[in-house]
């Protein structure tokens, strides 16, 4: 977790106004999202996140609202998970039940500068640790925020091992495999050509997790 400890050490004692929070979140988001896919935040968005409980209540100094490190982390997680396609209500629920370490585990590793081997090595170790943490947790269903945290880390890892560098699920309707009535899998034929035991295992694990997440996002409607 060295790379995140570094990031957090910068923000451990962080405190600021609403405008300063916006600036800090954008600053921390930049290395996590070099392509700018996640978009930034602004004061209006922060107020909205607060209103729906996606951000915890900030402190006060006299009449002035003072945001702290926790809200920086929460904002980062909101942006990352929104980018992954999560509904905001579910993100808010997750954040309420997750401690700082759990939130950090949800964030992608910052991209190290090319040529900085130490930073690259530390980023790798941080990723391995997240992967190990995910492997250690036996999660049969997304019944708790902690399970969700671990399962998402594992999903990202499985997808990346399958060659999906972004670690995010995309959909492409090409070849339809009907597993049962109402349950069909769409796969691009070139991918099928590359099947081997490892890919089968990875795909099965990822498929299981994707279904769980869909179930989780939908909630218990019975």
């Amino acid at each position: 977790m060295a790379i995140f400890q570094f990031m957090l050490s910068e923000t451990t004692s962080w405190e600021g106004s609403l405008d300063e929070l916006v600036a800090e979140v954008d600053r921390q988001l930049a290395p996590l999202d070099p392509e700018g896919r996640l978009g930034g935040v602004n004061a209006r968005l922060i107020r909205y996140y607060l209103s729906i409980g996606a951000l915890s209540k900030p402190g006060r100094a006299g009449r002035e609202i003072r945001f702290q490190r926790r809200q920086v982390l929460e904002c980062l997680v909101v942006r990352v998970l929104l980018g992954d396609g999560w509904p905001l209500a579910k993100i808010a629920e997750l954040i309420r039940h997750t401690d700082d370490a759990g939130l950090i585990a949800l964030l992608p590793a910052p991209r190290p500068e090319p040529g900085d081997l130490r930073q690259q090595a530390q980023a790798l170790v941080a990723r391995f640790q997240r992967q190990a943490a995910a492997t250690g947790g036996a999660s049969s269903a997304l019944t708790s925020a902690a399970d969700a945290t671990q399962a998402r880390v594992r999903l990202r890892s499985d997808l990346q091992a399958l060659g999906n560098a972004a670690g995010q699920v995309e959909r492409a309707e090409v070849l339809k495999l009907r597993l049962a009535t109402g349950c069909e899998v769409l796969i691009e034929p070139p991918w099928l050509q590359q099947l081997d035991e490892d890919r089968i295992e990875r795909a099965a694990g990822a498929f299981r997790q994707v279904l769980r997440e869909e179930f989780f996002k939908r909630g218990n409607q019975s």
Partner: protein
Amino acid sequence: MNTKPPHEADPVLRLNPRRSALLAGHTNTVELLVRITAPPRPAGASQPRPPFNLALVLDRSGSMSGQPLTEACRCAHAMIQRLDARDRAALVVFDDQVNVLVTSRPVTDQRPFQAALGMVQEGGCTNLHGGWVEGAGEVARHLRPDSLNRIVLLSDGNANQGLCDPQEIARQCAELAGTGVTTSTYGLGNHFNEELMVGMAKAGMGNPYYSDTADDLLDKFEEEFALMQALCARRLRLLVRAAPGVKLELLNDYPSGGDGIWRLPDLAYDSEAWAVLRLNVSHQEIEGADERPLPLLEVELAWTDLEGQARSGVAATLALPVLPVAAFGAVAEDERVTARLAEIESAGLQLQARTAARQGDWDRVDRLLAKAKRLAQDHPWLEAVVSELEKLAAARDDARFSKESYYSSQRMSSRLSAPDESAREPDRDDDIPAFLRRQSRQGKKSKP
């Protein structure tokens, strides 16, 4: 054959074909020995070596109870004693929990390490990956390009907690090695997973060792320490460009770094890294050749020097004359090439025998060893290795046979050699460093 040494202290690249000619009118198969010869160790009191940045990661699971754990701690202690103020070390132990007993620190004072080692007690299960990754964190935090950055992992068991997938763990070792943090592994006894441990070390660009008993362990640590002290070039890569119509195959089991690129073992002073390529030269190319030697390939060497600088520029080309049958028949075979080919073939037979032993097919094991024995007729070292394997096979000791044949095969096809090896008998290897000795048993002490 054209060799271009840009600097006196650089490794020298040599190409030795099995026969220095091609046979006219036929498709030819040419075995080519590529030799990378290190410079001699500089004389004088202050012999250069890279600073070490190590993490010693010790298994303290229940199966290590007693002498194995005592011996592991003794080995770690011995390794720490050999470090000095230039070096850093960390000490990590694991069972189902992982504990960093000493965070990475300069070895200016050995007492914290000694005190920590004195308190290590056996525990429960084996979270091998957790221990490795914690050691990786310690090394990564202080990684320097001019240091030898290495995780030294010792275990006697199978990973049964945390991440246990050998392929995934090896993949992580390889990824980390790409940044310069390498992994060496030490398997102890008969119950560890040799494929996991060898896979980690190979992918991690370190060295795999194993010892039958705790008694033999210190010898393996000393061997690696001597090798680390003697290193003069790291991260060796061979780039081979074949001429049109020439197909290439690498016979050693070195990791590929891309099309025509292979990673070779780190190079020590007074040693030689080597690879055997098999070239298939098409009939059409030979037909089209004029009287000049036919260009077949170009080999280039890249490496990282002791200061951590990327180096390249050492290159060699191979061009062979095309001769009619009578003249071709008169060209002698290079004995160095045939010897290395025999080693690689023997390594392959040992792997096949291991598979058969794991299936309980001892008749097949015996047949394969008999074949390896015939191959070893003019090679005393190969003969000694096969004799040791025959003893294990005769005892139908599948656990030991499996480990010995696996490590022996790995060593035989990817070892450093002494440059004057062909002129010395294997039993006269005592006066050379342990990492260059041709040992008949990998799991035993190399000293007589």
